[in-house]
Structure formats: structure tokens, C-alpha cells
């Protein structure tokens, strides 16, 4: 910095913003400015358009360079306004002269309807010309008759300024006003006012002129600043970046697409779900996908002839062929509850319960299999448990159904647990998932009483959407498991929630995914 004579007080990187050294030495000019100054000094002043053509540059770049030279005091800009005249249409003309010629042929007067027959005219043109002919003072109208005036006769031999302007423009094409010679342009335009024959455009033009300082600086007072594309490590290490200009980029230009690595949008909803329940103080549990009918159905007091257990709705497993049952005392308590209510205070389903059917393995049909297992393993209150798990139903794949989907199931085992508290947990969960409006409606499930369904309001659909079921486990479920306090329980589907949040109409999109959708799905919608 010292070599450029900056004072110690100057800010770091002491070159002035335009890169000109402060004090003495040749002025460093970027390429376009350098070339423009050369042109101005050697070929003289010119308009920006002409200079751009001469330099083979964009006019916008030349303008920017001219402004920069002006800033340095090497050039000045002059702005001039002028008018450009042109014909509104290439064949534009006035019918006026043809009308007076026709009148002349008719002996100086005649009825308006007869005029077209005496000239190269149609009725419309005659009608349109009347007003202007009167304004020129070429004719007088008496009823339906027109008469040529003295001025009109005189005009037969001498064209008016507007007619001459039109003729001129027809020959030359668009003209600058100051290029029109031999006629009074203002008078011509006054006559044409309101006739839409000649178009007038206001134009401005900038001329760039070299200043004395500019002439004096060329060629020895300036040097060309090199323009480069890339800032390199070498330039930083040897300070060479100070000697060059960085060619500006078109920062508005688009760029090639980059696809980030991300988690799956549905996985993020599953993760949010887990986080919600962890935040609420729940402990996460899991259970096997291949589940015994006992845990999936019997322990939940679903009678063995319940339609949900039919082959039509549930995937049964051929291999392994049989599942083991838990503690015989528990199995027996479940049996008695089904058969006659056992010790639960219920009348039971009143049929002969089969242990063989309970051993049949199924693909877990709901995540409640995990929570009832957790309850039976440790029925002591207080306890809060949840699971997020894939479950299976024997559905044919279509846009609404898949044989696999995810549920979050949870239980609260608490002496003070009540239905109102169940509604509280569900409200807390759905609020955490971003829903503000929901309502609870009665529902009927075989293993909860009272039971409730949660409906969430979706603005886009203008409707309530059912998202899950919940209730308090029946005594027929809790009593055999050794639990004497109320157990709140829920099983909430998550795919539908995900589809609504991501605006999907086809559930398959979640599992047979279009990578483009995965790449585009926003991380924080």
C-alpha cells in the first residue's frame, strides 16, 4: 500500500473503489473504458449508438464506460432530445387533394355523393376529408353541396406543408426532425394534428465527448487494466489481484441443478411424531412385525370370529407356522375374559376360546400390539409408552391403499387417567404436528370404552378428515394384563397426515417414489 502512497490512516485495501491509484501514475482503465477513450480521442465525439457500433460493444456497456470516464473527468456526456417523424403506415396519404381535384373537374362545385365518381376516391374518404378541407379553407359546404374556395383553387397547384412532409417521409422513411429541409415542420404537424398519419416519437440521444483531460491523458496517461474471470490462489499470494479487474458475471443467470441428500419427507413426519411423544415424556417401545394372533387380537378382547380377523383382511403367516404364547396364567385370564368375562366384570363374548387360533402368526395389523405387550410386561402405574411402527392390512394396492402403513400408538397408565386426559394428550400431539382445529367424535372400537375418533380440519379440503382412533382400554383388556388403573390408548395413522401435509393424492408416492419429488420436497414446508 505504501508504494501507492496511501496514508497509514487509509482503510485496509486502500485502493479506491474504481481501482485507480490514489495520487500520480497512469490511470488504470478497464478494457471498455480504455477502448472508448481511445476512440474519442482519435475519432472524436459521437453518439453512444455510433460509438457502440464502432467498438462492436453493447450500447449498455458503452454507456456504463462513458459514465465511468465522465466520473474520472476524461469525458463528458451530452444528452439531446429530438423528434423522429415517420408515417403511421407505409402507404399513409391524405385524400384532401383528390377531393378538390374532383370538385375542380365538376366545375368547382357539386353534391357530396357525386364526388367519388369524379376522382380516385370512395365515399368514406370524402366524408373523412370534409372536416380537414374546411379547416384548410379549401371548400365551403352548403347543405349537401361543396364549393371550391379561392384558397382551394390556389391549392390545386401548390402542395401544403403537411402533404409535402408525407411525401418526403414516404421517400425517406423515418426522419429526425432536424433532417427535414425546405418545409416548416411545425406548420405541417399543426395541420396533421389529430389525423394519425404521421407519427412523432420523442427520442433522446447521448453524445460522448472527450474532455481536455481526456485528450491529454491519451495515450501515455492511461494503462489497460487486465480483466480476469477467476480469483486464484496465486493472485492472493502475490497480490496480483490488485492489478486486474474481475469480469462481472450475469448474476441473474440460472445455475445447474444440485440435488441435496435428504431424509424422506414421510420419514421426517415419523421423526416429528416420535419427537412429539418423547417431548411429552413417553418411552418408546417396539414389537415384532410377525405377531401372534394372541397379542394382535385376543389380548385386546377381539373375539376370535371378529371380522377384522378374517383371512380377507389380515395377512396370516405360513412360515413361521406358529407363535409361542406368553405366561399361561395370562393366557388363561384372556381366555376366561373372552368366554364369560372372567374377573373383569364383563359378561364376555360367550364362546369357546381357542388357544390354537391365538397361536396363529399374523403380520401385525396395528401398533396396539406393541402397547398391549408393553402393558402386560409392566402394568404398574404411572407409565407412558409409545411406538411408531409399520402395520399390515390385506389391501390391494391403489391410490388410497397400501398393504403397509404406519401408526403411532401410545398408552398412558395412570391412576388419575381419564377420558378428558386422553383428549388432552391427543390435542397436545396434533398441536405439535401443526394442527389448530380438531374435534373429537364418538367412535366404537372393540377394545376401548369410551372410544373417540379425532378429526382434523383441513382448509385446502374445506372438510374434517379422520386421522385416528383412541379410547380407554376396556377392563377386559387391562384386567387380564394385571392392570387395575385406567389405560388411555390410541392408534393414529400417519400416511394420511403426510399426504395432507405434502398435498399428495396418491399414497403410493410415499413408497414407490419419484426421485424428483423427493429431491424437491422442501425440508421445512
Amino acid at each position, binding site marked *: 500500500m505504501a508504494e501507492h502512497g496511501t496514508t497509514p490512516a487509509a482503510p485496509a485495501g486502500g485502493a479506491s473503489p474504481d481501482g485507480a491509484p490514489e495520487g500520480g501514475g497512469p490511470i488504470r482503465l478497464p478494457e471498455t473504458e480504455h477502448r472508448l477513450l481511445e476512440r474519442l480521442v482519435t475519432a472524436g465525439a459521437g453518439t453512444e449508438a455510433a460509438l457502440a457500433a464502432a467498438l462492436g460493444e453493447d450500447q449498455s456497456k458503452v454507456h456504463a464506460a462513458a459514465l465511468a470516464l465522465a466520473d474520472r473527468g476524461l469525458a463528458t456526456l451530452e444528452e439531446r432530445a429530438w423528434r423522429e417523424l415517420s408515417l403511421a403506415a407505409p402507404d399513409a396519404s391524405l385524400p384532401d387533394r383528390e377531393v378538390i381535384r374532383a370538385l375542380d373537374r365538376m366545375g368547382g362545385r357539386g353534391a357530396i355523393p357525386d364526388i367519388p365518381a369524379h376522382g380516385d376516391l370512395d365515399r368514406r374518404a370524402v366524408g373523412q376529408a370534409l372536416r380537414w378541407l374546411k379547416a384548410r379553407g379549401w371548400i365551403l359546404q352548403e347543405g349537401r353541396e361543396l364549393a371550391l374556395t379561392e384558397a382551394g383553387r390556389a391549392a390545386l397547384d401548390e402542395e401544403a406543408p403537411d402533404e409535402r412532409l408525407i411525401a418526403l417521409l414516404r421517400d425517406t422513411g423515418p426522419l429526425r426532425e432536424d433532417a427535414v429541409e425546405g418545409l416548416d415542420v411545425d406548420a405541417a404537424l399543426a395541420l396533421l394534428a389529430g389525423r394519425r398519419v404521421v407519427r412523432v416519437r420523442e427520442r433522446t440521444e447521448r453524445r460522448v465527448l472527450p474532455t481536455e483531460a481526456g485528450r491529454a491523458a491519451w495515450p501515455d496517461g492511461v494503462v489497460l487494466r487486465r480483466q480476469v474471470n477467476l480469483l486464484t490462489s496465486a493472485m492472493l499470494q502475490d497480490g496480483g489481484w490488485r492489478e486486474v479487474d474481475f469480469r462481472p458475471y450475469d448474476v441473474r443467470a440460472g445455475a445447474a441443478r444440485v440435488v*441435496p441428500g435428504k431424509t424422506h419427507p414421510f420419514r421426517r413426519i415419523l421423526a416429528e411424531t416420535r419427537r412429539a411423544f418423547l417431548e411429552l415424556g413417553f*418411552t418408546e417401545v417396539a414389537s415384532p412385525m*410377525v405377531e401372534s394372533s394372541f397379542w394382535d387380537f385376543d389380548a385386546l378382547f377381539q373375539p376370535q370370529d371378529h371380522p377384522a380377523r378374517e383371512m380377507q383382511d389380515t395377512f396370516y403367516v405360513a412360515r413361521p407356522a406358529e407363535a409361542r404364547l406368553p405366561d399361561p396364567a395370562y393366557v388363561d385370564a384372556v381366555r376366561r375374559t373372552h368366554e364369560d368375562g372372567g374377573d373383569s366384570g364383563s359378561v364376555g363374548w360367550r364362546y369357546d376360546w381357542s388357544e390354537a387360533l391365538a397361536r396363529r402368526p399374523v403380520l401385525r395389523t396395528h401398533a396396539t400390539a406393541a402397547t398391549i405387550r408393553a402393558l402386560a410386561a409392566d402394568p404398574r402405574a404411572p407409565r407412558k409408552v409409545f411406538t411408531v411402527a409399520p402395520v399390515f392390512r390385506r389391501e390391494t394396492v391403489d391410490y388410497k391403499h397400501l398393504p403397509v402403513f404406519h401408526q403411532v400408538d401410545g398408552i398412558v397408565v395412570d391412576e388419575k387417567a381419564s377420558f378428558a386426559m386422553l383428549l388432552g394428550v391427543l390435542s397436545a400431539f396434533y398441536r405439535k404436528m401443526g394442527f389448530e382445529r380438531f374435534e373429537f367424535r364418538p367412535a366404537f372400537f372393540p377394545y376401548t370404552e369410551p372410544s373417540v375418533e379425532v378429526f382434523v380440519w383441513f382448509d385446502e379440503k374445506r372438510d374434517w378428515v379422520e386421522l385416528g382412533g383412541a379410547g380407554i382400554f*376396556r377392563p377386559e383388556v387391562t384386567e387380564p394384563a394385571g392392570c387395575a388403573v385406567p389405560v388411555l390408548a390410541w392408534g393414529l395413522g400417519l400416511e394420511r397426515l403426510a399426504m395432507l401435509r405434502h398435498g399428495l393424492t396418491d399414497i403410493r408416492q410415499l413408497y414407490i417414489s419419484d426421485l424428483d419429488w423427493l429431491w424437491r420436497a422442501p425440508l421445512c414446508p
Partner: protein
Amino acid sequence: MPVVGIQTDLLLDRLGPELAGQLDPPRLVRTLERIGCDVEGMGELRRLRCERCGNLTEHPPDHADPVACDRCGVDFRERPELLAEAGSVEVIRMELLAVRPDIFDPGGLARMLRGYLLGEAAPSYPVDPPRLRVEVDPAMGTERCPRPAIACAVVRGVRLDDDLIKVLMKLQENLHWALGRDRKHASIGVYDLDRIAADGPLRYRPVEPDGLRFVPLGHDPADPAAAITPAEVLEVHPKGRAYRRLVEGWPALPLLEDARGGVLALIPIINSEHTRVRPETTSFFIDVTGTGERIVGKALNVLVTSLVELMPGARIEGVTVARAGEERVTPDLAPQRVRLDPGDAARRIGLDLDRAALAELLRRMGHGVRDPGEGPFEVAVPAWRNDVLHPVDLVEDAAIAYGYHNIAPRLDPTFTVGAALPVEERSVGVREAMAGLGFQEVMTLQLTSEARTFEAMRLPVGERHVLLANPISADETMLRTDLLPGLLGTLAANTHRPLPQRIFEVGDVSFLDAEAPTGAREVRHVAGALCAATAGFADLRPAVEALFAELGWGLATEPDDRPSHLPGRGARLVAVRGEERRAVGHMGELHPEVLEAFHLRHPVVAFEADLTRL
């Protein structure tokens, strides 16, 4: 669940002018939702009559005409003149609740709403002394003819029109579905009493498949060929074909006949044409048969009480059912007695309800309540309710009467410490690492096939995979044992998307395990794949090594000859930590035959590892 259309004008008529005036359609829908009905909407149905058998059916206006009568089977395409318009009706459509078939006809629903909204006490229905007697053959319920249970009733003072005939049909269908499991556990017959010879006992007995001939419902009695045997009914009659599975393998079929041997019905298939209910019928004979007395009795109770609600002035008359010297009179409309502790009930709901308030809520739901002042209530549950197994079922009724919308949600006051499963937290970390390495997560289904798991991957069919007993398609016959085929399937579905494609999945695969309680267990895996115009072993290995490092392991890759890989370009993934070396997975360039099997046209290099061993 089936959707039931309840005729709106009949409902409003049964509600009485006061309620009908209050319940505009939106309020009616709201009210129904608040008592637990899933309302699909309101709309008009077109009613059509089969002119041959009188069968009435209802159809949405935009549906095509039925091609055949579902009762007599006549083909309307051949005999279009037999399909007649019978007007249109406004209905409210709701999903039928299996536990509450008593509120899916205008009569039963109006009864419920009058109590719920007006506090009107549930009616009691007198049962007149029996005049008819049904004798049950001792063979009923044996292996020869295993349908033991029967309950009967007579309803007199019936006045019918098209609307009521249709309601009666729907009520039967509702009960068949909700309580009868499609006639398996209970099936209902309704007959014109005046066409039954009742000068002696009716008989419920087994009949040989070719033991007699009768004219089934829908057959023209004038046709000499109309009378057919039970075996022929099962062969040719539409209802026979629809329900013969219920009697498959039975040596004899259940038959109900009158005192002179006239057939009422071949049970649970079809009634006789002779006893068919007609618009001019004034008295019904009704039977419900099935596998158990409880369900059969409940179905009969719902039916006869709703009929009285629908046809004011009708009277229920008992029928004596005699079996092996034992006699009882059906229907039994005595309420079910349940003891309910009011304190328990209020605590379960979470409301501060005093005894009187709770009793009032129960009365609004149709229950009789006797409050002895202390100790439990004596609750009389109406005979048409089938869903009260335990006192908690009454708690739900009280909560519904109170209104779920009036219950303020509250949070659990008990402090608990939450805890995540380690395998899930580990999976979160692995997903983060894979995403950071530029891989996009995908999720694929757990269900797959042997063709995809083994054949497409050039692997011998394994013996450790879980097989389904009742797969729904050939593509989904087993639980996956590897994630990789799912990744290849995803790549195959995205061949039109730009390359390179880097994807991964973290998920469970399943294996048989005799030690596991259910015989199988899940193992958490991670797999990743890179598909690009040039994708080689060296392009993926650094990412795998980086992932292992994130999990605290070094990576050694040892030559392996897994047939899925190009020979010489596959490796075993060995996790290394100090002296410890664990084979945890594999990686390699996939064999072109594998790529062809998945219709992939660009090379793929992939890895899969067992996360539980890393």
C-alpha cells in the same frame, strides 16, 4: 362398513313436530356425528321395483339400472318392462355401526334422538301372550343340522306401504350384517301371518336336500316348474347361490314349516313365495335363527321394537318356542340389569358429575336408572341394545350424552421421563450421515417376493424368510430380507430422472428365528446405491468408509463372490475396531443380469449392512 340410507321424511315424522322443526339438515348431521354416526351426506335415491317379485331397490340417481333382480334373479336387460320406477326418496347416508343396529332405521333413530335431545324416557313395549307355538326338532343344533338357536315373534296391526316395506328390508339387512355376520350368526325371516297355518305348532326341523319341494321367493307359483327342492334352491336361486356357503357340508338343511307342512323358509337361505309379505299384509310372523341364543334374541328385539316405532299401533305378541320339553316365550324384552358405580363413571370420563347429573345422562341414552342414594346405580339397559358387556359401556353412553365437545381436554399431571429406543436414535444418526454424504433417503415396502429377493438378485432361494399364508398378489408373498432390491426398484422407477442418483434406506428386514417368541425377528439394515453413467466400486467405497467411521468403526473390504455382484468387483464389508473384526454386509458393482432383471440401463454400485452389528 356398509352405508345405510335412512329416509329423511320418515325420520322427521317419527321425531315429532317439535324436534323436526329444530333439526335443519346441518343440525341433524351435527347431532348424528355427536352421537357417533359417521354421516356421509344427504341425497336423493331412486327407487325401483321388480314387477315380477315386488322387490324394491334404491339407487343413487347417477347409477346405472340394475341388470338383474337380486331377489328373483330376472334379467332386466331381457325383460326391461319388469323394472319399474317407484319414485325417489331423500335419505341421510351413514356408515352402519355394528354395535348399534338399533339406530339405523327411522324408528330406532328417532327413539334415540328423542331421548338424547328432549330427555324423553325410552318406551317400554308390551308383549301380548303367545298364541303361536314353534317346536324345535331335537336334531337342530346337532352335526346333522348345526343351527340350533331360534327366536320368534308375531307383530299385529301392521300397516304397510312402499316406504315401510323398504325400511323393513333395510332393517333386516342391517341386522344380518351387524349382528348376523352376513346371516352366519343370525338370519331373519318375516312372513305374512295370515298365510301360515297356525292351527297347530310350527316346526323348525332338518330337511334332506331333496326332502321336499317348495316355491321359493321370487318364483311364480303359477309356473308348474316353480316348486324346487332345497338342493335345487342352492343351485339355481340367486339367494341360494349367495348363501349356500353357510350350509356347505351339512347333511340336512334347516327348515321352518307351518302346522300343515307349508314351507315358511329354507333357513338361512330363502323364504317361500307363498308367505311373502305384501302391501296388504296386516300381521307378521318373524323368526330369527342362528348359532347362539343371545345374538338371535338381540336381533329379534331390535327388529320388533323398531317395527313398533315405525308403525304406531302395531303390537308385539310372544311366540312359544318348545325344545325337548323346555318352553320359553320370545321375544324377551326384559331390560338387562347392570350395576354402575357413579363415582367410577365420573372419574373415568374425568368430569365432576354428581349422581343426579349422571343418572340424567344415562336416561337421555335410553337407560332406566334406579339410584339407591348410595352405592352403585341399578341401570336397566333396553332390550334392543346389544353392546353392553360391562358397566364401562354405560360410561361411554354418559360421555356421549354429555357431549365430547363439552369435555375440556386436560393434560396428565403425572411426571414421567421419556426415552427413545437406541435402535431408532442410531437410525436417526445413520440417516443424517447418509444424507450428508449426498444420498437421498427412500422408503420401500416391507412386502416383497422370492422372485425379486432371490431370482432377480441371482441368489439361491433362502430358507430364513417369513412367508405369508394368504398373499394378495404374487409380488407380495414374503417379508423382505434385504433392502437392496427395494432400492433397485426405486432406481427402476426413476430411469427418466437425471443421473447420478444416490439413494439409501434405513429400515427393518425380517428373518425366521426359532428363539424369537413369534418365530421371526426384525433386523435394522442400512443400504445405499449409486446409479450413474459410470458407477464403480471406487465411487461408493469412500462413502461406506465414511459411514462406518461415523459409527465408530474402520472398514475393510474383503473379496467376496456374492452372485449379485460382477465377479471380482464385490466385497464383504468388515467392520474393524482394534482386534475386533465383524462381517456386517456387502458392497459391489451389480451384475448386469441383476440390472437387466430390474430393467436398469446404467451401472449401479451398492452396499447393504446390518446396523445392529455396527
